[in-house]
């Protein structure tokens, strides 16, 4: 083939379509693989026991705790003063205690750091002064803080053991896994359908005509959009222990008679 000969647009069309198909396939495959993984997690939780926390041996009688190290940074965009937090690291601990399984009786849990906690999403409580936090969040180092999410007495939990690791959830883990698997299935099927539609449009006769051009334009948009969508779906379906707590803390609004501090406009 002469490298200086003009390239037929038909060949280039097939090539770019091939790139779109391969790329979409990779993203869909990874999502389907993730769905399969969640199925394995679900099988693990099938042996769970539902119980209520009677008492724990941790501070204040808590059974277990997830401690998250966060870094807060002050927003510098227009609007009220806000600090946005990211999770730097996390660790979990079961302090030991007793859970009640109703008619099956009580069960004692040993203290251990080899624990996986599935905790419902919670808005972290901030026990610092906002002004102090804001001042530190406005520096290069940011505002470092710790957030604790506790499993307290009276909480309904689901418990199982997996290869020596204690797993405790404060919501039904099977329902969670099922829901996330549905999301992944929807994403996979939807992506394939969009790909088929875009391909059909792009290849509709006359090639390079108006409909075909529309298909190609949609194909470009689809190529650019499915990547962040795939990452968003991955993040949405993360196992709860891996999900970021994050959070945004806005300056508390004072009483109506006082003007707000440090408003940025």
């Amino acid at each position, binding site marked *: 083939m002469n*490298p200086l000969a003009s390239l037929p647009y038909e060949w280039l069309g097939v090539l770019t379509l091939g790139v779109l198909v391969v790329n979409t396939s*990779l993203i869909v495959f990874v999502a389907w693989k993730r769905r399969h993984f969640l199925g394995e997690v679900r099988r693990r939780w099938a042996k769970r026991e539902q119980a209520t926390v009677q008492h724990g041996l941790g501070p204040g009688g808590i059974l277990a705790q997830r401690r998250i190290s966060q*870094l807060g940074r002050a927003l510098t*965009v227009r609007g009220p003063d806000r600090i946005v937090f990211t999770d*730097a690291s996390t660790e979990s601990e079961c302090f030991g205690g007793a859970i009640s399984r109703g008619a099956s009786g009580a069960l004692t849990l040993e203290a251990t750091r080899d624990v996986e906690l599935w905790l419902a999403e919670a808005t972290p409580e901030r026990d610092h002064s906002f002004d102090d936090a804001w001042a530190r969040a406005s520096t290069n*180092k940011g505002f470092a803080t*710790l957030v604790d999410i506790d499993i307290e007495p009276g909480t309904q939990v689901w418990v199982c053991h997996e290869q020596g690791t204690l797993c405790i959830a404060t919501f039904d883990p099977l329902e969670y896994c099922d829901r996330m698997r549905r999301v992944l299935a929807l994403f996979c099927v939807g992506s394939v359908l969009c790909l088929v539609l875009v391909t059909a449009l792009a290849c509709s006769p006359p090639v*390079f005509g108006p409909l075909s051009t529309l298909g190609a334009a949609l194909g470009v948009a689809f190529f650019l959009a499915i990547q962040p969508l*795939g990452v968003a779906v991955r993040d949405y379906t993360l*196992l709860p222990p891996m999900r970021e707590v994050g959070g945004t803390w806005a300056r508390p609004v004072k009483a109506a008679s006082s003007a707000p501090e440090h408003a940025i406009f």
Partner: protein
Amino acid sequence: MARPEETWLLHHRADRRQVGIITLYMGVLAAMYLVPACRNVFCLALACYLSFLNAVVIHNHLHKGIFKYKALNRAFRAVLSFGNLYPASANIPSHNVVHHHFNDDGRPDWADPRFVTGEGVAFRWNLLNLIHFPNVAGPQTFHGVSRWARVTRQRDFRREYIFEQMFAFGLTGLLLVVDFWTALFFILVPQLWGARGILRINLIQHDRCDTRSEWNHSRNFVGAFFNWVMCNNGYHTIHHNRAGLHWSVLAEMHRKECVGRIAPGLDEPSMVKYLLREFVFGFRTFSTAEEPRAERGELAESVDAAE
């Protein structure tokens, strides 16, 4: 008093090569778009290659501006942004801040190889990991850049970022409207080739390296011709350790400071051979372990100190 390496326009005379690369790249793109005879394999392949070099120039230019005049540097960034269809200023948080510390406020680098090569997520055929990598690293990077843009105290950053986006996407959009198929094949394809290629370089340069190590955090490609074309971007260890060095001295500094200190396996003589060995003919083996457990180790010492 002017330094010997300076010219009247450039901080370093070696940067004439980079200006030449971009001029040639823009010329090839314009030729393919405007001249039907230029829409051939040779020009398209050349454009794709130059697009990757465009991303290399973005990297170098955002470390140290090429020109002595701020307005010229700004204009050059806009042209570079068009060259790869992403705002060049994104390199400031993604590369200069996060990647050079392998750390985003305690979280992994947005383009950490383990996002695609970690157990439970990777393909066994390593080539597929290389192809797939930008699908993950790209969105993560731009999400991180957006978040960084909201908290940065560099007030000019947001304005520059938006300007570069508008220029790059605006000009590309205009070209698509005027002649869609020509712009798709001969503008967009090269643009995205380079943009996704520079993300893949992250995987190539850091996969299976120890980013906590002072010396073994990166892989180097030390071929002479390769580095002449790539403006010495094959010397990655020294670039991480001394980010302020001009690219023209990296080869010499690599020999002086890195050779003998880094693991010998991290000095690859040929990128082509490495790619063939590790990706085309490379297959990963994993244990049957599931995704990593939630716990991510010790609390940051800084938190304890702060509390």
